[in-house]
């Protein structure tokens, strides 16, 4: 609070120095106290939350490798037996192979089908472009249940359900639009003058793609492919609906086991969860590594 000051009567050009009468500056005690309280409580809250997150992750891992763990702080011993048992009992290797086949195939198909579209979206302006972009966004903003159930009923009626083809094809529903959005920034950042140059040198559309566009976006495609791959590795709802006993992805298999799991020892189930966690972590780190690598290469 500062009192209103009367207009200074003096007519001097130089500023009036009245420093001596100035009130000393003072901190607000209440403000200091509040700020201190806010900081302390934030730290407590954050550390608590992170302890839980880390504790949870650690608990799964320890439990999967623990011999006996009941009410003590740490397991009494460590073993890979549960892990091996889970791996054998549920044919994890087999399901892992199936998952990789499905996801890899679907990733490649998604990329191939979406690239031409991405090119048009990045280079051409046309009336319904915004609407089209909106449309491509729908499959991953709408709840997947809305299309998953009718797709399942259709697939069962035409015999695509419980087949590898069926599982690959349903992955495209999210795969194609997802790869459109993930590739778009890479293609948009390409310099169109390179294409004009190529065309002026007589390159056909096909040659243009093959020789000019594709080589430039290889780093982008690699990074995108890993992200699409992770996304599909996690596809759940629709796979659960159309999977058969022998054509399941890893996460659906794990889920099915967990769902009816009254009899299994928890260590076994945690080992199973771990088999799902390891590839996910691996691919996430790979994605981070590739994107930092490509950014370096592009000089960003």
């Amino acid at each position, binding site marked *: 609070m500062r009192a209103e000051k009367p207009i200074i009567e003096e007519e001097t050009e130089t500023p009036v120095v009245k420093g001596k009468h100035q009130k000393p500056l003072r901190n607000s005690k209440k*403000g200091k106290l*509040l*700020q201190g309280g*806010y900081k302390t409580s*934030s730290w407590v*809250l*954050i550390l608590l*939350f*992170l302890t*839980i*997150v*880390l*504790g*949870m992750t650690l*608990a*799964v891992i320890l*439990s999967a490798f623990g011999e006996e763990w009941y009410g*003590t*702080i740490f397991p009494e011993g460590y073993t890979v037996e549960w892990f091996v048992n889970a791996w054998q009992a549920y044919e994890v290797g087999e399901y892992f192979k199936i998952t990789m086949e499905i996801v890899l195939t679907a990733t490649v198909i998604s990329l*191939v*089908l*979406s690239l*031409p*579209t991405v090119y*048009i979206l990045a280079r*051409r302006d*046309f009336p319904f472009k915004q609407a089209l972009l909106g*449309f*491509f966004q729908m*499959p991953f903003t*709408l*709840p997947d*249940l*809305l*299309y998953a*159930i*009718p*797709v*399942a009923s*259709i697939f069962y009626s035409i015999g695509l359900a419980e087949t590898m083809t069926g599982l690959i094809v*349903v992955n*495209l*529903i999210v795969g*194609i*639009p997802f790869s*459109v959005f993930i590739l778009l920034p890479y293609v948009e950042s390409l310099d169109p003058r390179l294409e004009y140059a190529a065309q002026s040198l007589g390159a056909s559309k096909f040659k243009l793609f093959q020789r000019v566009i594709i080589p430039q976006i290889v780093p982008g495609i690699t990074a995108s492919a890993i992200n699409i791959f992770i996304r599909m590795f*996690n596809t*759940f709802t629709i796979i*659960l*609906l159309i999977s058969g006993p022998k054509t399941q992805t890893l996460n659906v298999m*794990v*889920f099915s086991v*967990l*769902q009816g799991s009254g009899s299994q020892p*928890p260590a076994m189930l*945690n080992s199973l*969860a771990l088999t*799902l*966690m390891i590839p*996910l972590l691996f691919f996430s780190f790979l994605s981070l590594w590739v994107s930092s690598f490509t950014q370096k290469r592009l000089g960003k």
Partner: protein
Amino acid sequence: MNQEVFTRKRDYLLLLPSLLPLLLLFVYPLLKGFVMTFQEPGSTAVTLSNYIEFFTNAKYYDTIWRTLYLVVPAAILELFLAFGITYFIRGKMKGGGLIAGLTIFPLTLGSIIIDMAVIAFFKPTGWFNTTMINIGILDEPFTLVYNYWGAFIALIILGVAFIASNLVGMMDSIDPNLEKAARTLGASHWVTFKRVFWPLIRSNVLTVFALNLIMQIGVYSTAVIVGNPASETRTFVVVAFEEAMRNFNYNMANTVAIVMGVTQLLVLAIVFAIRKRGFVGSASTFK
């Protein structure tokens, strides 16, 4: 000139490889699914019986409030936690990156693993309960898994990760000089937050909140693995799957899905009605 137009038109054929599969696998099923909700299994006659069944049978209509009772409080708490954490570490705070990374980390693991992790940590003999008993806060283990709380905790962990992953970038896009300016003009930390930071980030925060809420309304594996899908965590998707996979009644399953979609739209409408009453725009200054 003619040729130019011709090649341009032909260019649009390049849209087909992506559009065709989507029309077949997404648009057609979506429409068919909608029509199916007005039909009985095995019949093509139009009827409202599915919806009538849904809204008169407690087995179905209970899912609406059971889902919301689980998800809405969780989403609000998630927003507070995620906002609190990301706000605290915004700017160039030391260790901020690590905190953000650990907070967002569960998102990479996905829901099934987080569900298992919640069980491993919060089960009666898990670290949480043993610690609480050892400290003396609890006398006997508190049941936090295979019920409402189990699902609630799992939702919180994933929801905080999702919201935080979005908020980190949004907070960075607000020019830190704006806060400094407010502070030099005499505003306390709280007033700076209330009058400068919050109005600028508000609309984005609400959008993320809405997205997260919509996502969590579709909760399934969490409700089944750590929850109690028979009663407390009998959400929309649990019922829809029951209809589709146990009763093979795709028509009813779709009806549940449609009701869920409408619920999500309503939630979205409410959040956006709130969002509209404030500054919507960019808070980054040039340079």
